[in-house]
């Protein structure tokens, strides 16, 4: 009896404390809301929002609902995260590999980069890029074209827009190419296992991915033209660019700082991963006659990726969460649009903050579930 009681009492006390705390909070919340005449509910989501958002991926104006505003914010968050993740990965891998370079100057340069950007708060970096560096850019009328078509101005980056005809045919051709490559890979593996012959899979893949889309241009009726931004005078001193796609400076500052900051962490992950593969592995692989490319592809990378991917996914998650700092420079992301503007207008603090938190929570929980699953899949099976 004693032992059982000893197991139950601490649990009971903990649960009691948790329940009491939550009960206390809900009780107070109810009383406070009664006193202030606020009613709890998510009905406001379908009401007209009547505020505007500067930058939106989907059609949106004041006449749309709060739920649509939420979607606008969510999409903007996802946009900045995806762009940031792509650039951070590219930069991080380059820097991580450079840190292992035998060249003293290169690895010191990489180390300097990592130490420099890692030790400065992200918010400060965002402010720096947005308020100091990007403010030094030229006005639209003074901007020089980069490569003839990009215009980097104080009002944002203007890039040419693609104008497609029969875009779906083009996409189908790419999908077809990918499917074909997968099939050929499987076939090549079978051939290697049964006959020991190696097919030039890489070159076939490269050929396919170029030729099929090209065919779609030639015979599929696909055509592509560019709309190059043109300078337009609004008033005597006010110019903008028309046509093309314009990326607001907030987006540029945010992606730039997120990518530069996160890349330092990814670089460390990559370095740890490559260092984590024992020297003996490379030597053993070389001694059974694999060439350097094969050593990298078949022996080093599979093992290094096992070490690299979990912490890197974590960094992607961090980047996504850090993108909420957008609120500081008025980039209309989820926090600014929903937890900022919408909250001010409706006063529904509990509902809105809880929705915002749940969104981020579900995002990160789903990624971490995915990561755990992946981790389990690639973990070394120990006896």
């Amino acid at each position, binding site marked *: 009896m004693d032992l059982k009681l000893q197991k139950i009492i601490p649990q009971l006390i903990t649960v009691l404390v948790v329940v009491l705390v939550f009960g206390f909070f809900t009780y107070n919340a109810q009383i406070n809301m009664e006193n202030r005449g606020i009613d709890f509910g998510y009905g406001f989501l379908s009401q007209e929002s009547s505020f505007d958002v500067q930058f939106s991926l989907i059609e949106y104006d004041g006449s749309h609902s709060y739920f649509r505003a939420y979607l606008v914010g969510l999409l903007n968050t996802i946009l900045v995260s995806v762009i940031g993740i792509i650039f951070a990965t590219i930069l991080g891998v380059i820097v991580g590999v450079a840190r292992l370079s035998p060249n003293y100057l290169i690895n010191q340069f990489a180390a300097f980069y990592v130490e420099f950007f890692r030790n*400065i708060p992200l918010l400060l970096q965002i402010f720096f890029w947005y308020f100091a560096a990007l403010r030094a850019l030229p006005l639209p009328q003074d901007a020089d074209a980069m490569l003839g078509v990009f215009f980097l101005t104080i009002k944002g980056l203007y890039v040419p827009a693609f104008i497609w005809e029969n875009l779906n045919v083009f996409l189908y051709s790419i999908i077809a190419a990918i499917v074909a490559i997968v099939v050929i890979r499987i076939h090549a593996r079978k051939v290697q296992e049964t006959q020991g012959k190696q097919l030039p899979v890489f070159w076939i893949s490269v050929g396919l991915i170029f030729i099929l889309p090209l065919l779609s241009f030639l015979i599929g009726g696909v055509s592509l033209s560019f709309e190059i931004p043109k300078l337009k005078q609004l008033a005597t001193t006010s110019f903008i660019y028309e046509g093309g796609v314009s990326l607001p400076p907030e987006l540029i500052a945010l992606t730039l700082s997120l990518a530069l900051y996160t890349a330092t962490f990814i670089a460390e992950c990559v370095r740890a991963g490559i260092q984590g593969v024992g020297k003996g592995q490379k030597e053993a692989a070389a001694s059974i006659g694999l060439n350097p490319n094969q050593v990298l592809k078949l022996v080093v990378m599979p093992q290094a990726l096992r070490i690299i991917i979990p912490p890197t996914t974590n960094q992607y998650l961090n980047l996504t969460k850090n993108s909420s700092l957008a609120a500081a420079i008025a980039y209309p992301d989820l926090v600014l649009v929903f937890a900022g503007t919408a909250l001010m207008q409706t006063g529904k603090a509990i509902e809105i903050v809880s929705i915002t938190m749940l969104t981020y929570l579900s995002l990160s929980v789903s990624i971490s579930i995915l990561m755990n699953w992946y981790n389990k899949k690639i973990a070394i099976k120990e006896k």
Partner: protein
Amino acid sequence: MSKINFLKPDKENLNTFLYLGSFLFVISVIDVFLNSFFSLNITGFLPASLSFIIPIILGFIGLHFIRIEHSGYKFLDQVNKNINTNNFNAILSLLIIFIVIKATPPILSWFVIDASFAGDSKDVCSGGGACWTYIKVWFRRFMYGMYPNAEQWRINLSFIALALLGSVGYFATEKFKKYLTLYYVVIYPFIAFLFIFFFISGGPVFFDFSYGIIAAVISIIIGFFIPGRFKFYYFIFVPITLYIALKYFIFYDELIELGKLDGLNWVETGAWGGLSLTFIISFFCLIFCFPIGMAFALGRRSDFPLIRYISIGFIEFWRGVPLITVLFMSAVMFPMFLPSDFFIDKLVRCIIAISLFEAAYVAEVIRGGLQALPRGQYEAAKSLGMGYWRMHIFVILPQALKLVIPGIANTFLALVKDTPLIFVVGLLEIVGMLNLAKTNPKWLGFAMEGYVFAAIIFWIICYAMSKYSYNLEQKYKTER
């Protein structure tokens, strides 16, 4: 004289290659150097595009010539091994050297040569360089926020005193070493709180919290005489009872009256700011998040399923949301959850929010350490007849914490770097003050100087912390 093969330098004509290669390399460096420091273009007679890439070509050929293995010269071998292993590396090395040479003059002139230091108005900043006058004029604001100038000695005094008290560990003799943990975990934070409360904010001598302290002290003293198996329950219930008894039944009003006798001016937390606020917040969050995180790490590995699930829920919740939404919650949502007559200061809410947030990360780091310990350690401790707490305090935690020093240091670094986010609730630490100063109509256009200044400060703090943690890691590294 034997044949000289320019495509493949060899040892036969070592000196020829050496002189030729070094000469070409030096020429290329000098060209770039003159170009960037004195804006002289010694290859100006060539077409513009050729003149631009000529240093790279010359340097590349030079490096190719001096790439001779086992030349017999130690220095040359070192150079070849480190920056000149093959053509690709040679070009990268050259590019980096040239970039450094190119970047030095503008950076130097912006920071020092063209910068203005003197004066105390915007007029002196007409040069092309940085305007450090701006930093000088605003220095007090950046350090102390809106804290009244006449009272700033209180912050300085508190920080100096706390730094001195904090360094006690270095001077402690062997005899007192065993009390150090107690000192740093319990006594020092408490002293720090008193300093901040009495000195920096100028609080009353007695306040609600004093009863808590008195209650805690009395119950700890009595606690020594309580038999071990009841201690846990004793320490949960008795201090709270004592606190209520003291507050509601025994000389409450008298003490509050007494508390009003103090002489320091009350300074609202809203007026605190600048770097000192960064320190205050980081300090308290560091202190609070560690024990909370440790508790949840133990909870997550507990044998009791209910405790385990609660801990997992807590950790995953805080780790899943961005700090900015947590601060939003503490600002707009948390007051709704409290009784309407109950008021918690903005700064305290911030500290609670950040501590809970970072505690989840600390918990995960410590859990990693706990998992890394071999089972044998647990079993050995149990076989010696140790209970749960004894086992963890004397055997498991000392080893586990040693293992996770780098992880904990990273979390603490993240915490320090997260403090600027408190702008969300309207508190202005150094970055917030910069944004405020930047919009001052008298001092427009110096955003760059401000951010560079703050970046340097943060960089020094964070870099020092990471180096310190590295030293700690080396110091406590035990062969396993």
